[in-house]
């Protein structure tokens, strides 16, 4: 049994367990057992991956396996990981684990909620381990669909509208994606769906010219590429806590990962043709998201726009097409995943107590719920790139990497993008100043209590992860940059 298949198998077993669970405690038990198992598995995978690499494994993907699934179209269930997928799996496992705790007390239909939640994680894990185009696409869809129900049923505010918008836009993206994937398949001779084999073929330039933007856009919608980002604010604002965490933390990373692994890796010529165009869009994303976040008044909207900006930075760095910038992009995915999950978790907890996310109605929370407030400050500082927390490492790698591209146009874009770090400071500090500091104006809020143990646990886990990445980035950076190499060498001939 392949180690990687466990990543899909465990969630499936969890689904079974949830299905037969009879009360809330059993549901929680299954979730905790499953998600901690996944976390351990991801950690074990990371360790053994590093071990294998140090022992001199030179293959591009390790732990590969392939089982034919639908032979006429050469669809296989093929799995394999490189450094990029390993860190993404680790990220997903952390988020799923903490997400479980963040939704510990979720009330109506707990069992059904966790069923969909687990199905979503199945899709995410499956996506990251797959190396087969179609299998990847399938898992991608598996990850998307539960989102509709999770937001539509357990969300808040205009949840039906948001759920519908999110699902439709992402589905629109995946329609492009499907065409693109078929284009790649036939462009590479229609012999294989396996990425590692397709990359050996040369897809004709004309086909790349047509299909690169389709795949990139398809994944770009998920990666909140301007101007297809508008599902993000509404969707995140309406989603329940853990779903926001998982969505912003992991699902949006599927976009960046896909852009890199499928669009750019398989169609380097297309990337060269379309690179500048998309670079402009991503630069706009970066700056635009940051500026838009400045004037929002809903906590989740602020964070959603900040996600647009940060995820824009991921695609931006990928399009810079240097080894360092691509490493930075992956680091940024990791870092943004962790800190945005932390953010959404905290916002959810604050919202659960105050029942408002409007920053004009909140103030002085530092005195009332010190733990959450401190957590929020840490998340904010991570977001604005405080050294010692993950955001700094990622952003600096991105910027240094982007600057390695000597082209003047790319330089200009880099410099424009760097301004976002100032704007980030503006909106983060604005929120921190408004809601945490000062004196509490609302007498209702004075009665509120600080975080409970499950919330504390989730927050502390995430803070540790953020700080670990920020303090000792060497191993992650090393892990990623080794795996980025073959993809980047495709791009720069």
């Amino acid at each position: 049994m392949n180690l990687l298949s466990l990543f899909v198998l465990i969630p499936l077993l969890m689904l079974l367990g949830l299905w037969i669970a009879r009360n809330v405690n059993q549901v929680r038990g299954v979730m905790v057992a499953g998600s901690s198992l996944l976390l351990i598995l991801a950690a074990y995978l990371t360790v053994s991956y590093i071990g294998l690499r140090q022992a001199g494994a030179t293959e591009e993907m390790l732990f590969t396996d392939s089982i034919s699934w639908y032979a006429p179209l050469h669809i296989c269930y093929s799995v394999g990981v490189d450094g990029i997928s390993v860190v993404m799996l680790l990220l997903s496992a952390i988020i799923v684990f903490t997400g479980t705790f963040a939704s510990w007390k979720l009330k109506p239909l707990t069992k059904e909620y966790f069923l969909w939640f687990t199905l979503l994680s199945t899709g995410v894990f499956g996506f990251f381990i797959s190396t087969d185009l179609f299998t990847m696409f399938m898992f991608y869809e598996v990850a998307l669909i539960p989102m509709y129900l999770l937001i539509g049923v357990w969300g808040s505010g205009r949840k039906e509208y948001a759920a519908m918008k999110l699902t439709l836009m992402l589905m629109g993206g995946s329609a492009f994606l499907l065409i693109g994937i078929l284009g790649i398949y036939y462009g590479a001779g229609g012999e294989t769906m396996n990425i590692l084999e397709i990359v050996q073929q040369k897809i004709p330039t004309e086909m790349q010219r047509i299909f690169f933007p389709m795949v990139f856009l398809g994944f770009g919608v998920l990666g909140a590429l301007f101007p297809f980002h508008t599902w993000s604010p509404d969707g995140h604002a309406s989603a329940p806590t853990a779903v926001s965490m998982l969505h912003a933390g992991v699902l949006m990373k599927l976009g960046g990962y896909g852009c890199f692994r499928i669009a750019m890796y398989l169609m380097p010529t297309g990337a060269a043709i379309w690179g500048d165009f998309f670079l402009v869009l991503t630069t706009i994303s970066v700056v635009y998201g940051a500026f838009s976040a400045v004037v929002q008044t809903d906590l989740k909207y602020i964070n959603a726009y900040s996600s647009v900006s940060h995820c824009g930075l991921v695609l931006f760095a990928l399009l810079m097409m240097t080894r360092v910038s691509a490493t930075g992009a992956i680091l940024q995915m990791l870092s943004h995943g962790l800190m945005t999950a932390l953010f959404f978790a905290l916002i959810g907890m604050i919202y659960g107590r105050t029942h408002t996310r409007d920053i004009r109605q909140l103030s002085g929370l530092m005195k009332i719920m010190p733990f959450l407030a401190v957590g929020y400050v840490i998340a904010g500082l991570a977001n604005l790139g405080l050294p010692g927390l993950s955001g700094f490492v990622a952003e600096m790698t991105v910027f240094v990497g982007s600057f390695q591209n000597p082209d003047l146009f790319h330089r200009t874009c880099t410099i424009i993008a760097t301004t976002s770090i100032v704007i980030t400071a503006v909106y983060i500090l604005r929120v921190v100043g408004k809601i945490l500091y000062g004196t509490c104006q609302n007498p209702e809020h004075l009665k509120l209590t600080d975080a409970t143990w499950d919330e504390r646990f989730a927050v502390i886990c995430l803070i540790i992860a953020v700080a670990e990445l920020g303090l000792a980035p060497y191993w992650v950076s090393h892990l990623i940059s080794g795996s980025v190499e073959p993809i980047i060498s495709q791009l720069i001939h």
Partner: protein
Amino acid sequence: MDYTILILALPLLSFLVLALAGMKMPHRVAGAIGTLSLGAVAVLSYLTAFSYFTAERTAEGTYPTLTPWNIDWLPFTQQLHIDMGIMLDPISVMMLIVISTVSLMVHIYSFGYMKGEKGFQRYYAFLSLFTFSMLGLVVATNIFQMYVFWELVGVSSYLLIGFYYTKPEAILASKKAFIVTRFADLGFLIGILIYGYYMQTFTFTPSEEQLMKAGMVLPWALGLMFVGGAGKSAMFPLHIWLPDAMEGPTPVSALIHAATMVVAGVYLVARMFPLFIGFAPSVLHWVAYIGAFTAFYAASVACAQSDIKRVLAFSTISQIGFMMVALGVCTSMNPHEGGLGYMAGMFHLFTHAMFKALLFLGAGCIIHAVHSNEMETMGGLHKYMPITHITFLIACLAIAGIPPFSGFFSKDEILTACFQFSPVIGWVMTIIAGMTAFYMFRLYYCIFWGKENKELHAAHVPHESPLNMTFPLMFLAAVTLIAGFIPFGHFVSANGESYDIHLDIQVAATSIVVALIAIGLATWMYAREKQPVAEMLARRYSGLHRAAYKRFYMDEVWMFVTKRIIFRCISTPLAWFDRHVIDQFMNFMAWCTQAFGVTVQPAQSGRIQTYTMWFLGGIILLTLVLLLF
């Protein structure tokens, strides 16, 4: 010198301990942890300095640059990687002494000053964090490490300014400080990026070959780095955050906003000094001009402020301007041929840190005693607070440049360097030095002499502070007294060789005379109970006075830029655009789909007959088409 790692590790450790467990500790224990670790750091720093400066010089007569510790923290490429390490050279060792001394004094002082404050432990935790970051900044082995710690000091400064987080002014001030410096740091970052790319290294000593290749790019990189330095060191027009930063606790102002963090910009320029001299002398001249203008601007604003901490803040800005000028007027690496400014600037940095910390701590005692920052609540305090009075006077004399206090020696060196560069700038700086003497003594007289606010003092009799607050004052006063006689040039000079400070009699005499005149003027105007001259002047030039009091409306300009331009003109329209154009476009597409659905919905009538008719019609049409074509 392996123990130097402890200099960084101890404050970090104390920060972690205090941050994680501090809230559960009694105040005393928390304070003791912070102070003791700082004490150890100070001892280690002195030890380091001692062994460093007593070690043998190299063959060229310079002190060697040591790197006792260095690890690869974040690799980018083969050449580019962020290292974390400790580098010892004369200026970093000098900075170690400055930081650990002032920080230790502030730690001790805070015991008394912050007594009974809520969040005492948090305060010490942040102080430790700041000390750690500042020490990390000065011992940085490469420009990127410097940037890392640069950001960290920014954050600790933010946290400490916002220490009284329930006060709206403190929140605003902390936010402003962070954002303004962040804005400047953007320049620093871009400078580093350019530097890193063209030099292929982040270290301070790029290879000759790369330097030759870089050509025109290097001045840009250095100029942008200076922007970052200007932000931290509150150079005009990025100075606006510093006066507001006085909302923080006074010891914090002494440590961060007077002695250490604000001179980081000066330190940065000094760090890159060889490159400035070699490849970007024009940028260096700009440094000098900006420094001179800032010094003048801040000095004139300081003359009209009424909040004692604000006066001190502007005097800090002005003094940093002096240091920048000193560095900027250098034309070569040789202290005998136009390179004197480097040594002078560093010397002034050293002496200024001591006497400015002293001034702030003294101000802290005064504020502690009268519970206000405003001058009008003071006056005549010399009766109540003798120790504070004497030490404050020493510091004032030092900053005014009266021998034998330390400020005289360092300022004199700066003026000498200025006169070597050009007489114009020399005279300008001399006059600014006079202004310094004037406003400092205005402050001094208004606090300790002048008209006493009897009602207030009767209600609440001012008293001398306890020993844990006065001890740091006395210690720093002693340092201020003797620091001028340190053979500073022996340790620090532009090219590293030993340099004997010798007073230029002409310059020294001029500056003393100017200072004495200014002091006399201040005495005449402010020493007595009534201050007719000052009031008359303020009335006659009310416009000017008002403008100076309002800091020449720089804050308003900045508020205009941020509130109006960024907030109103960029963000609000963008957010509107996002919600009403882009989002509405998506909604429009959804609406189109729906509208189309509604339009064709009647066709889905549920009437089988209609369906069949369409069906049959379709078949007929198809058949016709097939027949005809």
